[in-house]
């Protein structure tokens, strides 16, 4: 309604954000020199930027980034699909949930990244172990959110559909599935950032391609700027994945009042 009054704090916030960015970049560029920190500990911004150009031209930065993005996408999509599928199946069968819940809980507690070396032993230095770690790590937030959504659905809503003589399939597609969408997207947002973590850990453990590999390569060469470049690129990849989910979420959940960007993470 009152867009004028609401826009000005929004603008203030954006301006403050931008100012913070400038201060941060300036501190990065001149801070280490002023404090006498050697460049092999914290390389200044300009050095990292030069390294970025070098990595792009010589170290195939684009290839490594592309491979990481592909692994993240594959792991995220497969992990979300699997998580949603299992979530719906368990949601519709309380008996199955009861039987499987201790194992699911155990698997959820186990640190998924710890499986990375195992998967590499099984599948070698390919992209598959990385994707598998991402699948495993994305699976849980999506499954748990879908399951919780189905568990907490208002029974009167189901009764309403039943009173109209809805079949089991109609109840699922017309009531349960749409009800589970907002919590599922909350799970997908978490999954999008976790997928990057899973892939990077996989790449750190073994392989010769991907940003995680570039990270260890830079470490081995004591090439601190390259490590920084890799970290920045990983952050960009994670950010793109997260934004992608938000964009899809906005289209799917357009009916919800005033969506906040990154509201609940």
């Amino acid at each position, binding site marked *: 309604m009152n867009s004028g009054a609401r826009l000005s704090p929004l603008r203030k916030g954006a301006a403050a954000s931008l100012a913070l960015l400038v201060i941060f970049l300036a501190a990065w560029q001149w801070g280490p020199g002023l404090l006498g920190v050697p460049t092999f500990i914290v390389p200044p911004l300009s050095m990292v930027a030069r390294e970025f150009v070098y990595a792009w031209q010589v170290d195939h930065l684009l290839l490594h980034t592309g491979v990481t993005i592909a692994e993240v996408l594959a792991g995220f999509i497969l992990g979300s699909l699997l998580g949603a599928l299992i979530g719906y199946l368990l949601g519709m069968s309380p008996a199955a949930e009861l039987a499987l819940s201790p194992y699911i809980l155990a698997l959820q507690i186990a640190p998924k990244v710890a499986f990375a070396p195992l998967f590499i032993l099984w599948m070698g230095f390919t992209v598959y172990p990385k994707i598998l770690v991402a699948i495993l790590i994305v699976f849980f937030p999506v499954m748990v959110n879908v399951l919780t959504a189905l568990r907490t659905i*208002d029974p*009167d*809503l189901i*009764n*309403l*559909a*039943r*009173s*109209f*003589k*809805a079949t089991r399939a*109609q109840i699922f597609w*017309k*009531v349960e599935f*749409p009800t589970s*969408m907002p919590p599922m997207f909350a799970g997908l947002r978490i999954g999008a950032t976790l997928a990057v973590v899973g892939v990077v850990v996989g790449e750190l453990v073994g392989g010769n391609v991907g940003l995680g590999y570039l990270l260890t390569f830079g470490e081995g060469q004591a090439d601190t700027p390259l490590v920084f470049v890799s970290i920045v690129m990983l952050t960009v990849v994670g950010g793109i994945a997260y934004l992608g989910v938000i964009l899809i979420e906005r289209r799917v*959940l357009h*009916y*919800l*009042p005033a969506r906040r960007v990154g509201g609940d993470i």
Partner: protein
Amino acid sequence: MPASPVAGFVRLEYRDVTMRFADRRGGILTAVRGVSFCIRDGEVVSLIGPSGCGKSTLLNIGSGLTAPSEGVAFVDGERVAGPNAQVAFMLQKDLLLPWRSVAENVMFGVEIQHVPLPERKRRAGDLLEKFNLAEFAGHYPHQLSGGMRQRVALARTLAVDPHVLLLDEPFSAVDAQTRIVLQRDLGRTLAESRKTALLITHDLLEAVTLSDRVLVMSRRPGAIVDEIVIDVPHRNDPIARRADPKVNEYVARLMDQLDIAHTALERETAGDGA
């Protein structure tokens, strides 16, 4: 418009209905015991009684969502064995689906029943027109006020063209002024479409102004202890009925019967059961 019981055929009947539930400590809780009554075609009957006397249980049995422990419910002379298309219910909660527009919410029931799309749209359009909601057809539920949402819920209930409406405290969550308007809309609609309805309410004035008869239930285990025929004209216009001095006499009589002072005290300790 006949205000007294219509001499038509029986639309809804409860015959010796008893409902027992297992309580948490493994005991047996009798919610309603030996309830029998009939509602004839075009009649509106209210059911009043203390909290937890099993009013909503009776409604669930009538709509086929739960089966009684003993006894039978009949709709149009047929035994209720599960949800059926002749009965539609409406609750205190509007139960609108947030991802559906107002028109799509009204069409929810007819869509499930595979009514062809043009017919669905026609019914939704007519009902929204009738409830002054036509301009909100494309809005989403969160954009509507509580009273409008309840009217959409009523439109959804009527869209399936049921013979019998089961209404469980449909207006108890809206403010007093909106409630009067909604009662007027309901009274008018029920009279115009000659629908049969069973209305559960805590609001004695609502029961008296909207009904042909009022059934009074006892505390748990709920049984019907009295039946009062409301002999006041204008059942189609609850606002006009409010002005009738006889209405207040009926309300006073119901208050006596329910022993309101006593019940109010007890509600503090006993929870609001099924």
